[in-house]
């Protein structure tokens, strides 16, 4: 009888353990579901608010005191050219740094220093980069509140992202490929140029797209270097004052009128269009890459 009791007690105990497990697993699922619900709610909220304001003049008009007339023309130009300039500066430097650290760098104290430094730079708040840009580019180099000063600041901001992603892509290339090329007498640079970089390219590209998508949405550092919100003329060159999409949105969000809030939502739809498209592209590229390896 005592054995039977023990068995049923055990079975009861086991049932309770499994029940507890299932409950907590359900909780874990709910956590992720909640995150998705928030994402969907955010998207619906923005679309409901902004869709009626998503009209042609939003793209062709300059900002205005009258919400019906206000548009994103100068902001779109600013964002576009900021991206181009930032990409031109950050991509070569980022890939070069990654190649050096991953393929050449000897294991010295300096190398380790550079590595700790990059990992820390990736965690420096973006607004601090704005203060750096203000001190170094706007004042120090005398570039003023120009597009170039903004692009330089943004380049430094996304550099760690590109370096980290490129290093991961390079590391994922099997050493056997390098060894085969070296065994055939190639110099390290020939190995990198003809083989390692070729194989790592889609991984690097994924990192670049994610970094650029981050740069499109960054607001704080550009506010700090003094990008303006009200610009009613076309961008003429890299030394011109400028504004970008998220700053224009921020400006509209800070105005009390309901119409400007809606206009901000319309601007957000445009901004999200860019960033989500870039993110989707990056995810797609990465998945294709994973299947190939």
């Amino acid at each position, binding site marked *: 009888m005592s054995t039977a009791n023990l068995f049923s007690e055990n079975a009861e105990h086991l049932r309770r*353990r499994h029940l507890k*497990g*299932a409950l907590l*697993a359900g909780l*874990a699922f709910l*956590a*992720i579901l*909640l*995150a998705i619900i928030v*994402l969907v*709610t*955010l998207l619906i*909220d*923005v679309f409901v*608010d902004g869709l009626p304001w998503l009209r042609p003049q939003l793209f062709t008009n300059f900002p205005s005191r009258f919400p019906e007339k206000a548009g994103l023309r100068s902001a779109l130009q600013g964002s576009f050219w900021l991206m181009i300039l930032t990409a031109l500066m950050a991509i070569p*430097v980022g890939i*070069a*740094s990654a190649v*050096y650290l991953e393929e*050449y*760098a000897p294991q010295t104290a300096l190398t380790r220093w*550079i590595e700790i*430094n990059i*990992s*820390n730079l990736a*965690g*420096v*708040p*973006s*607004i*601090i980069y*704005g*203060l*750096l840009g*203000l*001190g*170094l580019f706007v004042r120090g180099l005398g570039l003023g509140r120009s597009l170039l000063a903004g692009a330089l600041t943004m380049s430094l901001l996304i*550099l760690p992202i590109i370096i980290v992603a490129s290093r991961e892509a390079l590391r994922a290339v099997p050493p056997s490929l390098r060894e085969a090329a070296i065994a055939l*007498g190639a*110099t*390290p*640079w*020939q190995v990198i140029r003809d083989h390692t970089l070729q194989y790592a390219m889609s991984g690097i590209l994924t990192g670049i797209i994610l970094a650029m998508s981050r740069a*499109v*949405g960054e*607001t*704080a550092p550009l*506010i*700090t270097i*003094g990008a303006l919100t009200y610009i009613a003329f076309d961008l003429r060159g890299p030394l011109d004052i400028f504004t970008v999409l998220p700053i224009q*949105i921020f400006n509209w*969000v800070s105005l009390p009128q309901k119409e400007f809030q809606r206009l901000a*939502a319309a601007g*957000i739809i445009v*901004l999200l269009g860019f*960033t*989500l498209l*870039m*993110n989707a592209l990056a*995810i797609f590229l990465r998945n294709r890459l994973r299947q190939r390896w």
Partner: protein
Amino acid sequence: MTSLIHDLPARKARSTDTFVRGVLFIVSLISILTTIGIVFVLLQETLYFFSEVSLAQFFLDTRWTPLFVSRRFGIWPLVNGTLLVSFIALLVALPLGLLAAIFMSEYASPGVRGWLKPTLEILAGIPTVVYGYFALNFVTPWLQKIFPQTQIFNALSAGLVMGFMILPLVASLSEDAIASVPYSLREAAYSLGATRWETVTQVLIPAAFSGITAAFILAFSRAVGETMIVAIAAGQQPKLTLNVLESIETMTAYIVQVSLGDTPQQSLAFRTIFAVGMMLFLMTLIMNLLSYYIARRVREVYQ
């Protein structure tokens, strides 16, 4: 003679290699120069600031009013606002992020996981100005319905939304930490009859504890440095309060406020943003380094 002909291209390739190596080395120093630049700019302006304002005023005063006629330079109201919003964000992001990580690494099938991970990445990829809009125009009105005394700008709304912004970071880093626990530990737990959840809570999480801690610290650092959500939704009133329904001001929001205003750039009032920036930089630097060393120690343990 023949060996000379053969050597020529090889020698050229070798000198190209040396050249490229040198160029790449110099380029990779830009990241170090960036850090030096940050420290230099912040230090220079902060020293100017402290030549006019004493450290005692900065750390002992309890009011922050550099833009008013009666100027006071006590940093604590801004630190208080920053920490208040950050703690709310962490209360959301840490439990939900860890649970999400557990679900993805231990429960979700590869197919489900293939959908969930990109979804979280989209959540992480949304510009913060968008989260700010959401906090102000969606979350705050709801809070006002539940707690009528809620002010238009308040710490709770910004903190909650910020929590969901950093949730993907917590989830993905924690998942990495859990995934890096050797499979043999799971097998040992299962073979002793542990249920799946017991394996998670009694084996995997303790084993991944350092990695998860590193993720939490990094999330904290991210929350402290986040700017646009608080600039839009948390207000511009620096005060020492724990009331999350009131308008407050964070360090980052203050920097934005002064940058947008018409404060002359050479004035003491403008220099405050560098002193505040220095404080912010040091706080996040300590957290980032801590997180880096903890995460690296784990990697060494399991390799």
